[in-house]
């Protein structure tokens, strides 16, 4: 059944492409529709489809409808690369919306670059992704930015003077966030009293936490994944550490509360977007998304939606449908009113936008504040 579905996805646009090529613009998308992180790909895909449906319902772009070709990368780097090649050479897409995982974007983006096809990643946050070349863009912030956000939040909102860091030393993401947090926090006059590390897969963190406790910090920054953070929070509370814990979007999972229970409540992390925002762009998006899929959109759906909207806006502005023309317009994106914030693309083709700070409250994600760069 799944194969049939993918086959249909492949074949349908080909058939329709033959007949109505003249009044259609084809955009390609690859994502993990199956595999271990299928939820990422499915969410993004829903966001993208919602955006394109809206655009088509409003009359399309340049008087033409947009059609979407979606290929499944099965969560594998090599499939992402071959899907990209297929989209460009067989489906003749004018631009590509990439998948979520940074590793797969790194495999796919250079191919789009070498064919001169604009590539927009919705959610790959690794800094290196857009270094593939000048046709590669993204609409999400990059990893280190979250460190900046939390440093600002800690010193301005929580009035933290002394902070401790507990980083996952095996994880580039965690190390990146921790480094930026440390630098920014010191710049703001704060003091890092302890900078300790653990490794993903560890279950006992009491040695590090006892050490942190002896330094009396006002807050602890733990930019790891929810799998370890839940246990860290529990053990910190057991040791009598009652100061706020802070983290990044690696915390964003329902499992965080299941593992950490009450110990994780009241702590803060940075994220791309929140369903609790009162911004009309967000509430409108959530309403439409729920109407179409009867579920609440997550951050990835919102990023997929924004990526599609930004790409189409660039196509609309471009004088023709050549890769170069679309690329040039994409690069000019400024203050685009997206669901995940006001998005501008900088000279590195990364998004400059705000992040939100969320407080864990059981399985709810309580919106605290928006932090702009």
């Amino acid at each position, binding site marked *: 059944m799944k194969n049939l579905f993918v086959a249909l996805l492949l074949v349908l646009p080909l058939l329709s492409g033959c007949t109505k090529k003249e009044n259609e613009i084809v955009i390609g998308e690859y994502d993990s529709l199956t595999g*271990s992180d299928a939820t990422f790909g499915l969410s993004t895909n829903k966001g993208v489809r919602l955006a394109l449906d809206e655009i088509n319902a409003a009359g399309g772009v340049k008087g033409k409808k947009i059609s979407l070709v979606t290929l499944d990368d099965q969560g594998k780097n090599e499939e992402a690369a071959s899907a990209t090649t297929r989209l460009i050479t067989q489906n003749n897409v004018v631009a590509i919306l990439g998948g979520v995982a940074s590793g797969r974007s790194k495999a796919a983006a250079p191919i789009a670059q070498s064919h001169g096809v604009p590539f927009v990643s919705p959610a790959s946050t690794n800094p290196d992704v857009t270094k593939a070349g000048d046709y590669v863009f993204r609409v999400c912030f990059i990893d280190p930015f979250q460190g900046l956000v939390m440093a600002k939040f800690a010193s301005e909102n929580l009035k933290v003077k002394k902070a401790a860091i507990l980083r996952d*030393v095996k994880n580039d993401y965690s190390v990146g966030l921790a480094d930026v947090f440390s630098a920014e926090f010191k710049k703001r006059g704060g003091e890092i009293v302890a900078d*300790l*590390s*653990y*490794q993903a*897969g*560890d*279950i*006992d963190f*009491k*040695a*590090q936490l*006892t*050490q942190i*406790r*002896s330094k009396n910090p006002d807050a602890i920054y733990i930019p790891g994944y929810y*799998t370890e953070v*839940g*246990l860290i929070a*529990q053990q910190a509370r*057991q*040791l*009598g550490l009652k100061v706020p814990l802070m983290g990044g979007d690696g915390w964003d999972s329902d*499992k965080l509360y*299941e*593992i950490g229970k009450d110990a994780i409540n009241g702590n803060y992390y940075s994220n791309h977007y929140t369903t609790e925002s009162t911004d009309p762009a967000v509430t409108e998006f959530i309403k439409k998304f729920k109407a179409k899929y009867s579920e609440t959109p997550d951050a990835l759906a919102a990023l997929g939606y924004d990526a599609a909207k930004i790409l189409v806006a660039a196509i609309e502005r471009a004088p023709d449908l050549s890769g170069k023309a679309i690329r040039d317009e994409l690069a000019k994106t400024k203050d685009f009113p997206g669901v995940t914030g006001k998005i501008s693309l900088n000279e590195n083709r990364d998004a400059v936008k705000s992040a939100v700070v969320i407080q864990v409250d059981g399985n709810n994600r309580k919106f605290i504040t928006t932090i702009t760069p």
Partner: protein
Amino acid sequence: MQDFVQHLINGVSLGSIYALIALGYTMVYGILKMINFAHSDVYMVGAFAAYYFARWIGIENDPGLSTLLTLIVVSMICCSLLGLVIERLAYRPLRNSPKLNVLITAIGVSLFLEYSGQVVFGADPKVFPEVMKDFVIFSIGNVEVRSFDVTVLVVGLLAMLALQFLLFKTKIGRAMRAVSANPMVASLMGVNPDRIIAFTFVVGSSLAGVGSVLVGMKYPKIDPLMGMMIGLKAFVAAVLGGIGNVGGAVLGAMIMGLSEEMVVAYLSSTYRDALAFGILIVILIFKPAGLLGKYSVEKV
């Protein structure tokens, strides 16, 4: 000073976790002279068996002693059965092959369980049911001794004593030591080595079962690769204490737990494993057979 005492308690508590797993390694090695690398994955399966059983009969939100004991028994049974199957299918056919073949098979079984676990249970972590309420037994200043830590330590020590008793005071224990010394001669004396070896696997695996529930209780996050690192450390602890020696396994595990803890506390958390393992290398240079390994009388 308070911090030092806290580190000491943390280290012993971590050491008792390693001890529970290390006993299983040392047990099988003592009898069979083979390293059962699949042991830490039997432990993983035990944790999942307890997890699914608790959900199935609906006691995952019912903390108490009866829940703990039920899950320990369930996990022990599942682990014993798995241990028996592994022994029968993977190790017994290789009984007369070179040691290296058995070792590689053990690694194969280990990987097979880990990755089958990812397919069957899913790669995302599961939350182990709350089987007991953790509470503070006593505290001095901000140093606290908690019930979980004491439970794990006591169970670890009891398991060690029970094993000693089993090996040195019972008939089957004598048979096990006989098989360990010379399987051929033992069978001439009316001991069935196959049955003794199968029994050894049952005992070793049920220790993994006990360990899995206690670790799940203390660190309520289980995943199919949970056995990897803890297994490696427990194995090293068993070697450090003198593999094959029951008391040595516990001693080695305590040293392992304490050295990890103290490295983080007074040296560097980034190089924790490197330095902790470094200490072990130094000990093994001076005591190649492990700390208690030379007392061959005590060898099982």
